[in-house]
């Protein structure tokens, strides 16, 4: 059960991502899912003082998107610095759910599940 305070914080991050990040709007369901998972996970690592892996091309991509987003999070939402790692992961978990909901599960975009590009 997520606390209301964490929900409110996740809402702030969600508004930022909606307005700013193109990776949530890729062409197909699987691309969106991959981006949300990869970038939010990398952001979680960065926000908890760890370095996400940067070995494969996709890991480098997730890092590039996440590192810019995290810098903006820190600038726009100063509360994020004082959250402990478990809270960070909880808040980012809620963010991930919200992004999946709007860009995949309840998206009205009819092209998302075409098998071809």
């Amino acid at each position, binding site marked *: 059960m997520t606390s209301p305070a964490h929900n409110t914080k996740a809402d702030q991050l969600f508004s930022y991502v909606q307005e700013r990040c193109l990776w949530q709007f890729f062409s197909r369901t699987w691309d969106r899912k991959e981006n949300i998972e990869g970038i939010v996970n990398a952001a979680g690592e960065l926000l908890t003082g760890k370095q996400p892996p940067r070995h494969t091309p996709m890991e*480098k*991509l997730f890092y590039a998107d996440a590192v810019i987003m995290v810098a903006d999070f820190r600038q726009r939402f100063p509360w994020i610095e004082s959250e402990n790692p478990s809270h960070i992961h909880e808040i980012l978990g809620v963010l991930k759910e919200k992004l999946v909901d*709007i860009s995949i599960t309840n998206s*009205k975009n009819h092209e998302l599940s075409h098998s071809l590009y």
Partner: protein
Amino acid sequence: MPMVLLECDKDIPEREKHIYLKVDGEDTRDFLPVSNAQTIPGTLSERGCAFCGAKLVIGGVLKDTIQMIHGPIGCAYDTWHTKRYPTDNGHFNMKYVWSTDMKESHIVFGGEKRLEKSINEAFDEMPEIKRMFVYTTCPTALIGDDIKAVAKKIMQERPDVDIFTVECPGFAGVSQSKGHHVLNIGWINEKVGTLEPTITSEFTMNFIGDFNIQGDTQLLNQYWDKLGIQVIAHFTGNGTYDDLRCMHRAQLNVVNCARSSGYIANELKKQYGIPRLDIDSWGFSYMEEAIRKICAFFGIEDRGEKLIAEENAKWKGKLDWYKERLKGSKMAIWTGGPRLWHWTKSVEDDLGVQVVAMSSKFGHQEDFEKVIARGQAGTYYIDDGNELEFFEIIDRVRPDVIFTGPRVGELVKKLHIPYVNGHGYHNGPYMGFEGFVNLARDMYNAVHNPLLKLAATDIRVKEVVAYREAAE
């Protein structure tokens, strides 16, 4: 309530599904305009055709390639010179236009021999050019001319030439968007991987979906040069045919126009494992972000910060001068699709301009997801808008300036509302730091130009004639 049925659409109520007015608290789960759908009978669409999407937008940009249009002469003329994409080799693509000039007898008896003759004639006349795109058009597709067979025969007879065929007649899709799609998928399947590039840097990328409008590509290329990144292929601004055959060797695909070129980026990821990074190239804040992301990918963050500092030192003061004078202006964006979501926040954040209405000719629902997420409440989001709808929307939102094409631009000028060419630009480039100052300057000159107001005054009478007269 948020889907809007305009007064002018009362006899074509289906249009309601295409026009959205954003309200606070709503998002794209609640409403998303229907788009990339067939134009509704009874509305006069301003869309282009599928052939135009392939030729005018993507293929015709290349600087070393004959664009042979297999069809009546008008298909060639109408997709030539209406976009301004210069090149660094003397604007070869803008100087010449090629057509098989099909007439009735060729339609009756078949046009393949005429196509073969035209291809040979073009190569003979321009012996230094060895690359060609051949396009079908509506009539040659309908009579079943086999352009692939003709191209294959000529490539056997002339082994030094390479020809790519685009089988996308005007009727193939609901708008020019289909032409983007067909060309993207055709190119990746037939040409990518057929040539190996010379690698000159440890950092390589493709820059995808930028067409060098008034020099956009050339401006951005200065940044990539400074960062030490080799662009293997520009898809297709100032690009060459053979560079595009080498796209499989890049480490990263950077995508600007995801609508016209997202397909090839997706396929490059699927077929070759090259990741796709989407960026915005218009606006200071976006350009900084794009440079930072690209540099983070390659691990050259210091170079990126240095470049950003240099560019800000050169251009930020100028941008702020215009921002001070444009703050609070109201803007409408009526273009193809992606510029809606590329521009709405950049003009708001960098120039203090409020976007009050946006219309897309060929955007898909993905584009509307992006623009509604970024755009303001109280703004209209329109798919496949027509002239009467534009008049009505203008009455509702009263923009100070409209970014659109010359054709709609001439229309709104009659209402004494200034327009800036949102497709080919007034005085670009508009991308990058310098480019966005150019955009701001053109917007400033439009908004503060006294001529349009003076033109609304009929000096023969004492009362000022309302500008709405032209619409009545």
